[in-house]
C-alpha cells in the first residue's frame, strides 16, 4: 500500500491576495485581479501581484539581490512554513525539509538583464553578484538558503503543467524517504520579456475579454505569483499533531507529441492524463465531486479541456461543479497547477467551489458558475494542460 501524502499547510502570493486567509476570501468572493500592467506600461491587461512588499514577510536584510521570482517564492516559503507550523533550523541546514518548485519562464528577466548589461556596459562591467540569479533554479536555491532547507531541492519545468509535476515529484521524494517534509508548488513572475512574449505569440487577450470556456474569449491574461503546498507523510503529520487539509491521491501525465506549440484538439492525451490520475488514485469518475480546470480563456486549450472532460465523465459531466480560477488571477504558468491544487483542497474542505469570476453562462455545457457552487464528494480533479502538448492531472482527497 502506498504511503498517504498529506497537505498540512500552504503559502500563497497571488494577484488576488497573499496568505491563505486573504487568498481564500478573495477567491470565494469572486474577486478578479485583471487590470492595466504596472510592469510594462504599454501592455494591456495583466494580473500582477500589485504593490508587492516582500519586506512585510522577509524583512529588509538580503532582499536587494533577490529577483522578483525569488522574492515571490521566498514569501510563499515563509507563509507555507508558518501555515504548517513548521520551525526551521537555527543554524546549519535541516536535511528533512525540501523544496520542489515548478516554473515556466524561470529567471528570464534576470538572464536578459545580465546579458543586456554585458552588451551595453561591456563584459568587464557586469556585476558578477547577479550571475547566480540567471540559473533557472535560483529561486529555489535562494529560498533554501533563507529558510535553511537542506533536503531535496529541485526545480521542475513542464510548461503550464509544471506545478502539478512538481507536486508529484515531491510526493515521490517523500515516499522514497528523501525528506520528511517537502514544500511543493511553483513560482512565476511577470516581466517585460514574458509580457512581450504573450503579445508576440498572440496568446494574450489584448483589449478583448479573457473568459475561460467562453467561445467569445479573446485569449488569456498573463498572471504571476507563487503557491507552495506543504507535503508530509500522514505519519509525520500526525506525529506533529497537525490536521491536514487534504491528501494527494493520484497523478497522471501524457504528452500529445503531435505538433510544436499547439493543443491537441482531439484531447486524447489530456483524456489519458486524467484517466491515469484517476486510476493512480484508485477512484472512478463517479467519485469526483468537483473539477478545478486549467482553462485560461485561450480558446484552443479550453476547447481541448472541455472535450477531455466529456471523454472521461460522459453524461455525468453536467452534474459536476467546475471552477476555472484563472478567471480571477490570470495564467500563472509554472505556478498554475499549484494554485489549482490548493483551490481543490480549500473547496473540498468547505464542500463548496469558488465562483468563476466574470462567468456569464454562455457557450459551455460545463457546470460553471459566477457564484459559489455547493459540492458533494471527497475527491477533486485538478487539470494543468500546456500548449506545448504536455498534460498533467492530479486527484486530491478531502482529509479524513
Amino acid at each position, binding site marked *: 500500500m502506498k504511503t498517504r501524502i498529506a497537505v498540512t499547510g500552504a503559502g500563497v502570493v497571488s494577484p488576488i491576495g497573499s496568505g491563505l486567509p486573504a487568498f481564500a476570501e478573495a477567491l470565494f468572493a469572486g474577486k478578479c485581479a485583471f487590470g492595466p500592467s504596472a510592469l510594462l506600461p504599454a501592455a494591456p491587461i495583466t494580473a500582477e501581484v500589485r504593490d508587492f512588499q516582500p519586506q512585510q514577510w522577509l524583512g529588509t536584510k538580503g532582499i536587494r539581490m533577490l529577483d522578483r521570482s525569488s522574492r515571490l517564492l521566498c514569501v510563499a516559503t515563509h507563509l507555507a512554513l508558518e501555515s504548517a507550523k513548521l520551525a526551521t533550523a537555527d543554524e546549519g541546514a535541516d536535511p528533512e525539509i525540501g523544496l520542489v518548485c515548478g516554473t515556466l519562464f524561470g529567471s528570464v528577466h534576470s538572464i536578459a538583464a545580465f546579458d543586456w548589461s554585458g552588451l551595453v556596459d561591456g563584459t568587464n562591467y557586469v556585476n558578477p553578484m547577479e550571475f547566480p540569479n540567471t540559473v533557472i533554479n535560483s529561486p529555489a536555491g535562494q529560498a533554501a538558503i533563507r529558510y535553511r532547507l537542506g533536503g531535496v531541492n529541485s526545480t521542475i519545468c513542464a*510548461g503550464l503543467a509544471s506545478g502539478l509535476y512538481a507536486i508529484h515529484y515531491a510526493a515521490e521524494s517523500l515516499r522514497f524517504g528523501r525528506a520528511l517534509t517537502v514544500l511543493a508548488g511553483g513560482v512565476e513572475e511577470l516581466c517585460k520579456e514574458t509580457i512581450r512574449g504573450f503579445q508576440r505569440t498572440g496568446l494574450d487577450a489584448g483589449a478583448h475579454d479573457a473568459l475561460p470556456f467562453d467561445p467569445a474569449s479573446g485569449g488569456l491574461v498573463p498572471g504571476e505569483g507563487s503557491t507552495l503546498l506543504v507535503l508530509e507523510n500522514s505519519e509525520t503529520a500526525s506525529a506533529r499533531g497537525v490536521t491536514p487539509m487534504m491528501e494527494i491521491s493520484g497523478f497522471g501525465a501524457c504528452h500529445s507529441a503531435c505538433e510544436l506549440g499547439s493543443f491537441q484538439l482531439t484531447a486524447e492525451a489530456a483524456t489519458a492524463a486524467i484517466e491515469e490520475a484517476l486510476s493512480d488514485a484508485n477512484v472512478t469518475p463517479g467519485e469526483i465531486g468537483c473539477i478545478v480546470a486549467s482553462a485560461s480563456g485561450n480558446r484552443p486549450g479550453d476547447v481541448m479541456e472541455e472535450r477531455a472532460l466529456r471523454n472521461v465523465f460522459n453524461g455525468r459531466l453536467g452534474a459536476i461543479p467546475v471552477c476555472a480560477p484563472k478567471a480571477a488571477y490570470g495564467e500563472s504558468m509554472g505556478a498554475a497547477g499549484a494554485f489549482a491544487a490548493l483551490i481543490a483542497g480549500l473547496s473540498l474542505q468547505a464542500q463548496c467551489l469558488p465562483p468563476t469570476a466574470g462567468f456569464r453562462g454562455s457557450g459551455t455545457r460545463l457546470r460553471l458558475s459566477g457564484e459559489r457552487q455547493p459540492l458533494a464528494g471527497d475527491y477533486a480533479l485538478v487539470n494543468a494542460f500546456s500548449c506545448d502538448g504536455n498534460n498533467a492531472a492530479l486527484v486530491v482527497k478531502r482529509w479524513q
Partner: protein
Amino acid sequence: MKRVVISGIGAVTPVGSGRTNLWEALLEGRSGIRPVSSFDTAGYPVHIGAEVPDFDAAEHMRRIAPECLGRASQFAIAAARMAIGDAGIELDQFNKRRVGVCLGTTSGEPLMVEAYNNLRKEGNVDAVPAGVFSRYPCHVIASHVAIELGVQGPCLMIPTACAAGNFAIGHAYDLLRTGRADLVLAGGADAFSRITYMGFARLGAIAPERCQPFDRNRKGMVPGEGAALLAMEEMEAAKARGATIYAEVLGYGVSCDAHHMTAAHPKGDGAVRAMTMALKDSGVSAGEIDYISAHGTGTPTNDRVESLAVRTLFGANAGRVPISSIKSMLGHTMAAASAIEAAACAMAIHTGWIPPTMNYSEPDPECDLDYVPNRPRETHPRVVLNNSYAFGGINASLCLARAENGAAGRSIQ
C-alpha cells in the same frame, strides 16, 4: 520495486558524438577544449571553451525542422536518436504512453535571449520574432524530444543547473522503478552561450589555458556545451529483448547546502549527505564503491571541498577509491556534464576501464586522493558513484553497478 538498467547511450560532446567516439576519446585523454569560436572573446581575460564542433542537426531530425529549434533542443534530439539506436530499440514495440523524457538543463535555450537582446540593442525590440519567445522556455527541450520521437509518457525538465543531469536520471529511475513508465530517455543538454561564459568569467572561475582538476596549480573550470541521453528501462524487459545492458541504476541521493548560491559549503556538508543518501537508496556500503566520477570542475574550491567530502565519507579508505574528472577533457558542459559522466560510469562498468583525470601534474596537499592521473586504468569496477554539484548549493550523487542477478550489496526492496 522494479530494477532499472541503462541500455543505450547517446551523446553530443566537445570530444565527439555517439557512445563509441565519446568513450574512445575519454580513454585516449583527448581534449575538447579550444579557443571559443561562436562569439568574440576579445572583451574577456580568457578565450577558451569546450564547444561541440561541426554539429549538423539535420542529420538527426526526421520530424521537426531543425531551424524551428534552439541549439539545446537540437543536441537533445540528436542524443535521443543515438541512445535509441545504440539500445537497438524500435519505438513501435513500446506503448508510447509509457515512454517518458526527463532532462536537465542549466540555461534552457539562452541563444533566444541573446537574439532578443541583439534586436533590442538595434532598437528593434518590436521586430523580435514570435519564435524567439516560444522556443525559449526550457520545458520545450523535453517537449521537442517527445514530439520528434512521438512518445507520450511523462515529459519534464529538471533545470537544477550543473547537477541537473543526475537529477533527471534519478527521477527517470523513480518513474521506472515505480512502474509509471517502461522506457525513459534521461540526461541533460546545454548550449554554449555568451551569458554563461560572461558569468563564469566575471566570477573569475574560468581557467586561462587548460582544465586541470585536483592539480595543485588548477586555475578554474572551462565552460562547455553538449548533451547526453540514456535509454533507461526495466531490467527484465531489457533482457527479454536481448539488449546490451551497460549498467544498473541502484539509487541516488540529493541535498541542498542551504549555505550560499555559488560557493560550496566549506566542509562539503551537502555533498556528504547526497552521497550518503545515494548509498542508502542503493543498499550498498561505502566500502563497496569501486570508482567515483567526480564533479571535479577544476576550480580551487570545488576540488578541495569534494575531496574533503569523499574523505569524510570514506574515512581511512578514501585513498583506495579511484576518483577522476573527465571535465579535464570535456570542460564543464553544464547540465550535460553529469549525464555524460553517468554515461562514462556506465561504460566504465561495461568495459572494465576507468577514464583518467588529464592535465594532472602536481599533487595538492588539500586534494589527497587517487585521481587516476593522465592514463586510463583497467580496474573492472562493479559499483560506482557519480557526483554533481550546482548553483543553489544543490548536490546529487548517482549510484550505478554491474547488473548481476541478485547483485551483491543490494537489498532489493
